[in-house]
């Protein structure tokens, strides 16, 4: 039996198609994935991401503990800020990736993936018992709260009309990767300027009992509800990794191109292996691929060079924003250079692919491209 978020009845009322995901029954689409992606790229989209975890880590040794289990530093993170990093095992494999927020000197909020939440809690508890006994504790508030994301260029304007920060400032004043407490039509909310779409946006932790009213107020503003299908396309266009695809327990952040989220100094789980990999390199590396046309390479498809398998696709989709097929995958490091050409075996059909810089889409470079196009068309 899959878990249901506090918004489950709202999804059914909107006619969403529900699928099992990470132990939860979640909406995969409401109307059309293409329409939902477009809404987020050009307006605003609304996501129920309550299936992701909300773990509160508190105690006098909370920062020390997180420094030990995370690849990113907790003790140097300022109160009010958020950071993205990995939770690695001793071999440098990725147990999960996570965003964490520093709420106070001795208190953090950590958001693991839905399917990894139980494993992360068990892993953390094991290390608390082993090295930090009595120094901190984990409070899993996933069932008591909801997580609602509003993503897209219109999200600051829309939320400013409904929601204020407790310091009286409008929500649009919140900086990227920071958080604040606020009120949404009188209801207490925790607001982070974070997301998983490559667009500007916010993620709100709300009490489960308040989630339906907040959701309906946002729907009432005309924001497009978006499901996991659109979320996957959006994150892939922005080249954001998905655990179970680009990263897993047998993949290190170094080969996944996530070195900037791995701190160079300090002692933490996996650090010796990760440093060794940074020094001597890894046999394979994650690359971005574009395949002309609309037929997408999908997870598991072989990547070939002159007829020999050099790796496999981890995720792929048709990108409606770029109107080409895009994919990420691992290849042997000597074939990983940007600009190279390889082949992808799409169900027995060989399709030429080009290795391109990641991300495929970023809102800033997209602005530049559209300005460039305007300038060119003026010249012609």
């Amino acid at each position, binding site marked *: 039996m899959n878990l249901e978020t506090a918004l489950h009845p709202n999804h059914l009322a909107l006619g969403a198609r529900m699928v099992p995901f990470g132990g939860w029954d979640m909406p*995969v*689409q409401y109307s*059309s*994935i*293409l329409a939902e992606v477009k809404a987020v790229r050009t307006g605003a989209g609304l996501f129920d991401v309550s299936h992701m975890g909300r773990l509160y880590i508190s105690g006098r040794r909370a920062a020390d503990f997180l420094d030990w289990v995370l690849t990113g530093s907790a003790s140097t993170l300022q109160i009010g800020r958020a950071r993205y990093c990995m939770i690695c095992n001793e071999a440098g494999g990725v147990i999960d990736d996570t965003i964490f927020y520093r709420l106070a000197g001795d208190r953090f909020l950590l958001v693991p993936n839905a399917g990894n939440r139980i494993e992360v809690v068990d892993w953390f508890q094991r290390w608390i018992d082993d090295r930090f006994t009595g120094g901190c504790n984990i409070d899993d508030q996933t069932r008591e709260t909801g997580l609602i994301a509003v993503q897209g260029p219109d999200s600051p304007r829309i939320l400013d009309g409904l929601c204020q920060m407790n310091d009286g400032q409008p929500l649009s004043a919140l900086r990227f990767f920071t958080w604040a407490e606020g009120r949404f039509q009188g209801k207490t909310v925790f607001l982070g300027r974070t997301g998983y779409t490559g667009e500007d946006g916010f993620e709100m932790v709300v009490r489960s009992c308040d989630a339906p009213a907040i959701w309906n107020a946002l729907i009432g503003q005309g924001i497009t509800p978006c499901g996991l*299908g659109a979320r*996957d*396309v959006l994150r892939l266009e922005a080249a954001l990794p998905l655990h179970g695809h680009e990263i897993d327990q047998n993949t290190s952040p170094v080969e996944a191109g996530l070195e900037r989220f791995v701190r160079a100094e300090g002692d933490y789980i996996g650090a010796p292996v990760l440093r060794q990999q940074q020094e001597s390199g890894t046999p394979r590396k994650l690359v971005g691929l574009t395949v002309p*046309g*609309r*037929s*997408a390479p*999908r997870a598991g498809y072989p990547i070939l060079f002159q007829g020999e398998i050099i790796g496999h696709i981890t995720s792929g*989709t*048709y990108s*409606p924003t770029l109107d080409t097929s895009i994919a990420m995958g691992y290849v042997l490091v000597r074939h990983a250079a940007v600009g190279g050409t390889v082949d992808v075996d799409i*169900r027995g*059909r060989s399709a030429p692919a080009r290795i391109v810089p990641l991300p495929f889409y970023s809102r800033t470079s997209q602005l530049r491209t559209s300005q460039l196009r305007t300038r060119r068309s003026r010249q012609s």
Partner: protein
Amino acid sequence: MSPADRKYTREHEWIKVEDAATNRALVGITEYAQDQLGDVVYFDLPQAGVSVRAMQKMGEVESVKAVSDLYSPVSGQVIEVNSGLIDHPEMVNEDPFEKGWIMRVTMSDATEMDRLMSPEDYEAYIAGL
């Protein structure tokens, strides 16, 4: 909901006889199929002139989230494919029974139609899925 003038496969294709004298028929996928696939972005279709066999794979349809094989409801020869689907695959979402038709075939054995489901049987079949 499924038009009465055609027959249906368990793989959610339809076939409609256009001209019984020449065994000419039109093939497509059903409303249920397009709804399950979601936004269709790509078709891999046979070329005119090739032979297809009853309930053998004739092509592929790809949506944003899934790939699905297409099966020919009957044996015969492809007369033409709907070239409009190349640039506008979304036609199959908008109008699967008419504008979104997939191929036109000459049936080699019209009695193969007898093995396919009537509209009523197909409706009962999808109601049970």
